[in-house]
């Protein structure tokens, strides 16, 4: 097993570089950040980057706003995407694959050209300046880009032995029951993936909040971050410090959720 640790160590040395770079930059004065060749130890440690950056914008309020949007989106996406994926993978109905193909096509058109019509649509619906455009689509199987999650879950659902469904149906179960008692419990790793991706996606989304929110009270973290970087000026120390602070919650989230990537105990017991 020693080789595993060697490989992990080597890999970690490489993958830690960007993060260490971010942290060292967050603790440096602007001038030292760009010294050539680069330096790794801040001198002096510029802790004030954190305090000053995080008070330069109302990050506390932005944090709450962002959490609200992220939580609503994650819930909606996980629930409705798994229901849809169940239908597209484990129930047989006419036109199923064609419908799926049409849904999937929505991720193949660059968003730049649907941006304006989508905006006009929300305008006609009177939903501008609210978080509705940022959250409601996620409750319709993540309409738009979220259809990726349906595809992902579909692929996972397809790896679960069909005998399990058959057995349940023979016992008189409804598809809904099969979904809840057979498929969902066996798909925890995939559901965690969707949770992580959706959360991070919403957390980092800049364009959505920028377009749909006009009240500075309701801005999100990503807009706060962008304000350190303008047309002519970048406040590097603040930008790096605030960036590090903003990704801390998602690192923690990943750390706690990855534990569900362990072999589904239930699967080991299944034999034909």
């Amino acid at each position, binding site marked *: 097993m020693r080789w595993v640790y060697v490989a992990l160590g080597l890999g970690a040395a490489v993958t830690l570089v960007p993060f260490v770079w971010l942290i060292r930059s967050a603790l440096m004065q602007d001038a030292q950040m760009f010294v050539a060749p680069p330096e790794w130890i801040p001198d002096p440690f510029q802790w004030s980057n954190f305090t000053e950056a995080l008070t330069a914008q109302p990050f506390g309020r932005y944090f709450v706003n962002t959490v609200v949007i992220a939580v609503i989106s994650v819930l909606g996406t996980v629930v409705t995407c798994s229901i849809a994926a169940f239908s597209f993978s484990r129930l047989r109905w006419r036109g199923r694959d064609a419908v799926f193909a049409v849904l999937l096509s929505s991720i193949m058109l660059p968003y730049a050209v649907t941006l304006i019509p989508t905006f006009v649509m929300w305008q006609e619906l009177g939903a501008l300046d609210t978080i509705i455009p940022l959250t409601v689509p996620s409750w319709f199987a993540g309409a738009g880009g979220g259809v990726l999650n349906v595809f992902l879950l579909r692929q996972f659902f397809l790896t679960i032995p069909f005998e399990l469904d058959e057995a349940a149906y023979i016992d008189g179960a409804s598809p809904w029951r099969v979904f809840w008692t057979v498929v969902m419990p066996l798909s925890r790793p995939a559901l965690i993936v969707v949770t992580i991706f959706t959360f991070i996606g919403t957390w980092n989304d800049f364009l959505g909040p920028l377009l749909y929110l006009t009240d500075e009270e309701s801005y999100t973290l990503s807009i706060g971050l*962008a304000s350190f970087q303008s047309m002519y*000026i970048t*406040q590097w120390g603040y930008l790096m410090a605030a960036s590090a602070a903003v990704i801390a919650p998602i690192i923690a989230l990943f750390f706690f959720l990855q534990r569900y990537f362990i072999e589904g105990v239930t699967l080991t017991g299944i034999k034909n």
Partner: protein
Amino acid sequence: MRRRDLLKLGALALTGACGSSTQQAGRDVPLQFMYWGSTFEQKAVDKMLKAFEQSKPGVTVKPLFTPDEYDVKLNTLVASGKVPDVGYVPMAMSFRLAEQGKLVNLFPYLSKYPQLTGYLDDAYLWYGADKLHGVATANEIELLWYSRSAVAEAGVTPPAVASSAWSWDDLIQNAYRLTVDQNGKHPDESGFDPRRVRQFGISCSITYAAAWYGFLRSNGADFADRAGTRCLLDSPEAVQVFQNLQDLIYKHRVMPGPGQLAATGDDVPGTNILLKTKRVAMVVDGHWSLLDMNESKVDYGIGVLPKYGEPYTTSQVAGASAVFAGTKHPEEAVELFAFHIDPRYVDLYKQGLWMPQERKYYEDQTAIDSWTKNDGHPPEFRTAVVDYARDHGVPDIRGRLKNLSAISADVLTPALQEIETGKRPAAEVLKEVTPKVTGLLQGWQHTQEL
């Protein structure tokens, strides 16, 4: 969306042009002001808006702070007819929006608001005879920034007065003295290692038009002919300017080539940091760097650019400010427009990010002192910036040539990058690209005296 909706969308966009109403003073007047900027600018703008609200009872201004992706947001707002009342407009969009009737023609307001007539001639953005859609938000010119300690070490003194500007040969000579590799050798000494340069003599962008346009004009060349329909970049004078720039990198080795500063098109890491770390001794960059210089406490000095013939620098290197058509309160909006670039109410002039557009701030001593007599403006500022801008500024082509943003993105920048990578001489590249540019030219924008 059906065809009808498509038309509706168009109609929606059109109605923006026809909004009209007369508003009595004293009633509730809500305005929206859209702008970009750093947290620094955000503070200054918020303060300015508060001052405006206080000076006009009944008026409230909602800021629409858009730190990034400004053109995406503005395009979306234009398409959906939800534009603000007053705001910044990227130069590439402003003339277009004006021609489409999306911006208020300010010409009729000139007689009512005399303040509007006091700006520098070059500041005005005309889109036809007696059609004025705004002014450049701030006056910005290109300067020669330098590290005081670096030039002192080498015994070099960049001139701060236009009349004693360096010739190009002077520049090269001084740049040699300022360029040092890690063993302390200069480029004209044997054993100089161009891969291990500790301090470059000079840095000047080849791809950024404002950086070289002053040189072009100084050498008697121009970007296009008088009609603005034929590109002149293949003229011997223009070729000379670009060949000289290329030579600074590859022949004289006093200027960093692509990637050597760890820089991208986004101007990473920034002139203040280049000078502070002495990666470069002298940098050609805009006046707006002054704020950064002071913020990061750089030991800097300001000089004028080298000249060929008449000394010139590019001026009006900024975005536009305008009043949007469809505002329900045009009078108040125009007043806010004048207010937001008035040095009396905006801190950004004293802090060094902006230079005033009103002429008196370059001519009247008290007015000049009001924005330059402070810690943020070094002693040479008067001659190297104020006088230089007033007497030697030539307006940036981005605010003067039609269709330039498309020309620049699709044709010109890739060609200039070829000059920058040094694979082919400037003459060859320019000869090839000039007819392509000519094919896309649509003439100069209209200009007129007030």
